[in-house]
């Protein structure tokens, strides 16, 4: 009788221990799952940053191309772009580009103006950038960059009408410096 009670008691005790062990495992797994869900459900925090950088790039292009240059007969940078786009490029020189009142040709004036604006804005604010233009041999020689933008980048492109049916695409990419 006594040994029967002992067997029953030891079986019950074992079962309790096993159930307790199972409960602990379930609790641990539930905690781990909760942790994973919390981490994975965090929204990507670069989204607002991307929108801001794209807007900044778009604003920059819109602003820079509309600035008028007193040393170039108060012509807008956009007009210099249009003039430069019609020019040719040979042996490292722009052929047929107009000249500003200070003797600089429109392509060089375009390059120096855009470079100055970029250095005094994104350069000072700590962003790397790449600005380039497509669709015309001469403007394709104008590429301005600070640092490199190998990975993730935001930016903006805009078409500038040179003549009906002839557009130049101006693109600005922004990215964080390499050491950030």
């Amino acid at each position, binding site marked *: 009788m006594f040994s029967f009670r002992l067997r029953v008691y030891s079986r019950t005790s074992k079962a309790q221990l096993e159930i307790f062990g199972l409960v602990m495992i379930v609790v641990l797994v539930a905690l781990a799952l909760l*942790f994973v869900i919390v981490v994975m459900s965090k929204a990507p925090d670069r989204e607002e940053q991307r929108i801001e950088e794209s807007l900044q790039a778009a604003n920059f292009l819109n602003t*820079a191309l*509309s600035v008028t240059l007193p040393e170039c007969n108060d012509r807008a940078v956009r007009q210099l772009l249009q003039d430069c786009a019609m020019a040719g490029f040979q042996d490292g020189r722009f052929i047929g580009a107009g000249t500003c009142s200070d003797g600089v040709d429109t392509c060089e004036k375009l390059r120096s103006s855009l470079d100055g604006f970029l250095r005094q804005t994104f350069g000072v604010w700590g962003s790397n950038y790449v600005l380039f233009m497509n669709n015309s041999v001469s403007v394709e020689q104008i590429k301005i960059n600070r640092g490199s933008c190998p990975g993730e980048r935001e930016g903006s492109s805009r078409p500038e009408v040179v003549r009906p049916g002839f557009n130049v695409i101006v693109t600005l990419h922004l990215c964080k410096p390499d050491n950030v």
Partner: protein
Amino acid sequence: MRAQMKMFETIAVLVVFFFLLAIFSIFYLKMQKSSVEQDKFEYGENLAFQAALRFFNFPELDCSFLLSQRNNCFDVLKLDAISEIMQADSLTYFEDFGYSAIFVREIDDDAMSWQIYRQAPASFTIERTTFSPVLLYDARDDSYSFGVVEVHSYV
């Protein structure tokens, strides 16, 4: 004796379990703390960005020509006027800009600059700044120059 051993075993398991739980909780709370700090930082940046967007859409500064207006452009003469008005009575615009400071400056050799709005709290933990390019139109000589809007937000 056996029962005591079993009890010690159970207690040991419990101790290990709670030890692991404590380490896990400390780690998780540390992560949450840095996540909260990051959220606060981003909130400050968003505030600055929103204040800048509201400022860009400010009708008082439009470059308007007859019935049309130019995007992303401020009239220099209107900037002169509004900076005087806002400095005299900045509380009127507190609903729009909250605790922030807004400056506009020209990128040029003879650069002009304007302090448009400034309401800073007595103390703040985060100051975020956002910069945006803007076109500045001077009607006196019909010229456009490159400007920058600087918005500081205080959280």
